[in-house]
């Protein structure tokens, strides 16, 4: 009897990129659910729009590059990028914001560098930063969470708001938007109020912003699940939260009027999403185990520094992109000692 000869190992691979990406998407569900609950179904509309645009963009560019389209789209990496960018955007961002961001992320940040695996910068964050720099107004107009008595919009209102940039006749734009907790801490501090005073404002809940806390909790749960499933290691999330928490604790200990509590920073803004879903993007992170801890610490510290002293209220995207730049160097300095070789 004849057999085909293939080289060892013969054992089936235990993992696949498709499976990894799918689990990342599943792990995002609790956070997205919380976001939808507090901010309305605009979140889902943005996600759907982003995914469709991302898949179309990826398919066209694969076609142009003469690469297989169907099997590559199946890897779901474009979908993950799309979802991550969509949930980082303000819920009421008009459709073209999403489209521009996704096109930049997929076409420039990902495929111009050679596609999946070759991009030095996290595509979703590259898209986000481009938008933030180019359209600061749209990018900082956040919807007030439903808890704060914001107007409830129905499906049609949402579609009109996102695609036609129209609000229902009786509602003013200012009535539904408000500063994010991070934003308001920043501006109010600028106005000379102290942190304890600011925290009495209605936006704030137990730890951070009302509603925001729950969203962060959702990402935390999803992230822990990913860790448990061994899809992500603990090094980057723990490093990031530790770096951020440490910086925040030190400053808080020095002056709790000027600096918000570490608990606030850990929960506010994109901290949890960033720690578990964005900084952990393997392609653009450091690869060695120790390197990843350093990489996480670096991002956490950068987030704090930019939040407190930088020009933007939230800083995850900038911090991640900066850390992306350092990944090769971190890898170089954290090379493990080969078995049987001298250190």
């Amino acid at each position, binding site marked *: *009897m*004849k*057999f*085909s*000869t*293939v*080289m*060892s*190992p*013969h*054992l*089936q*691979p*235990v*993992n*696949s*990129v*498709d*499976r*990894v990406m799918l689990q990342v998407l599943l792990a995002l569900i609790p956070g997205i659910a919380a976001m939808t609950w507090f901010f309305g179904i605009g979140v889902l509309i943005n996600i759907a729009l982003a995914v469709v645009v991302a898949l179309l963009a990826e398919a066209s560019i694969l076609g142009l590059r003469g690469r297989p389209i169907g*099997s590559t789209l199946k*890897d779901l*990496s474009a979908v993950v990028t799309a979802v991550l960018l969509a949930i980082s955007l303000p819920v009421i961002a008009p459709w073209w914001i999403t489209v521009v961001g996704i096109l930049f992320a997929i076409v420039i940040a990902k495929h111009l560098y050679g*596609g*999946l*695996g*070759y991009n030095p910068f996290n595509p979703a964050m590259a898209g986000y930063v481009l938008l933030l720099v180019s359209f600061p107004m749209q990018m900082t107009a956040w919807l007030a969470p439903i808890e704060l008595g914001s107007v409830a919009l129905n499906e049609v209102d949402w579609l009109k708001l996102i695609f036609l940039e129209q609000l229902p006749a009786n509602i003013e734009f200012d009535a539904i938007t408000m500063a994010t907790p991070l934003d308001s801490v920043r501006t109010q501090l600028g106005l000379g109020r102290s942190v304890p005073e600011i925290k009495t404002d209605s936006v704030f809940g137990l730890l951070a912003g009302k509603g925001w806390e729950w969203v962060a909790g959702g990402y935390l749960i999803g992230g822990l699940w990913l860790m448990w499933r061994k899809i992500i*290691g603990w090094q980057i999330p723990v490093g990031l939260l530790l770096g951020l928490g440490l910086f925040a604790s030190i400053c808080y200990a020095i002056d709790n009027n000027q600096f918000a509590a570490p608990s606030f920073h850990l929960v506010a803004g994109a901290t949890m999403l960033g720690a578990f879903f964005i900084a952990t993007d*393997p*392609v*653009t*992170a450091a*690869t*060695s*185990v120790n390197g*990843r801890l350093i990489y996480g610490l670096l991002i956490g510290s950068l987030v704090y520094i930019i939040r407190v002293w930088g020009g933007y209220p939230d800083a995850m995207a900038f911090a991640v992109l900066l850390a992306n730049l350092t990944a090769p160097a971190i890898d170089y300095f954290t*090379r*493990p*000692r*080969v*078995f*049987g*070789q001298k250190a």
Partner: protein
Amino acid sequence: MLKTWRFHGGLRLPAHKNLSAHRPIVNAELPKQLTYPLQQRPGVQLKATVAPGDTVLRGQIIADSDHFLATPLHAASSGTVKSIEDRIIPHPSGLSDPCIIIDTDGHDEALPPEPVEDYRLEPAATLRSKIRQAGIVGLGGAAFPTSIKLNPGPQRHIDTLILNGAECEPYITCDNVLMQAEPDAIVQGALILMHALQVGDGIIAVEDHMTEAFQALSAAIEQSRDRRLTVVKIPALYPTGGEKQLIRVVTGKETPSGGIPADVGVICQNVGTAAAVYNAICRGLPLTERVVTVTGQGLKQQQNMRARIGTPISDLINQCGGYQDSVERLIMGGPMMGFALPEDDIPIVKATNCILAAAGSEVATSKETRPCIRCGDCAKACPVDLLPQQLYWHSRAGNLEKCKEFSLFDCIECGCCEVVCPSQIPLVQYYRAAKSKTIAKAKEAEKAAIAKRRHDFLLERKAREQAERAERSRRKKEALAKLKAAETATEGAE
């Protein structure tokens, strides 16, 4: 309980051992024909000591060579040498090579055995030569001559013998069942090896799930009343049966990169090898049979078989009820490091520990290879603490210098990195290719160096000859001139 140590990485693989682990060893039928490849290891070619038409007895040497890595080959049963001809040999290349073919006569007559009375009275050198004459090589799969391993040279001090009973590859159970069936032979073999090495410590390492083997060996040691030998259970973690990994786990020592176990005072032998040593020394029987695990979902029945070396695989398969329809691949060795065979009319050799007839569902048939996503899972799994992903980039780019920098030659080709890679990249193939390219390049460089040396030598000789010639003619001229001068002087005086 002895302390054990850890090595980096490794994988807990699905064991699939129950297919064959708890069945008695079945004696395979005597085959009609035995086949013996003359190429023993790459580069070690034996010379036949028999010719077509010769009758041979079991245990008779049929091929040997004076290459220092060669061991003699013995006929595994009596019969007539039919021919010496090219057959497909069990080698990853799947190429044909000269083989001795013996038609068995069914009488299975053997040469009279020549056991050693008391091995304790024999010097190490005698035992080594007897072990070599018995054709014993490592039966764990590497087939390295045991007699060579037993002679690490005077500059290395050996203190520990480790018997490898850790069958870390999935499916394989031949050592496990042998430990259960012949613990005394293994223990006695270990004591002989310890005597030959003059070491005071012997450790038999078995995986923690091998309870029966552990008990059987413990009882055998108890009976031997030799306190220098112990059995230890070690965690089942692939590739803990790799020599350097096993030494690390059992002794905590790290064999230096590029070095051998003897550098850290350890000699490793497989448990089956120890039993073969016992049979050779105490029973006078050369190595002509071994236990082979014949397994896989692609077979009707899975079992461990004691088979004559040289038996066609197809014979063993038939005795297992034949293939299932689902059979997809025929592998010699385990699913991690074994190699796929093109057909089953190929003989088992001394190194054959397992024949795996895998069903399509048991092996990777179509991989969906994607670009590396730099996830680092490969590095986490690598037992040698390499950076497989870096090695992949550089080997793919053909940058052999970089490969060397990232310690390509420390890679043991265990396949851990490839099995965990989510991008399903055939990493080990790249490493193998880069290794053979490096070796080919080194050979070429060596050849070029030799050619250059020869060329330089010729040039030098020419130059020297020229100089010598010039010198000679100069001296001649001088002498002539002197002569002339003398002549004119005498003429003038006259």
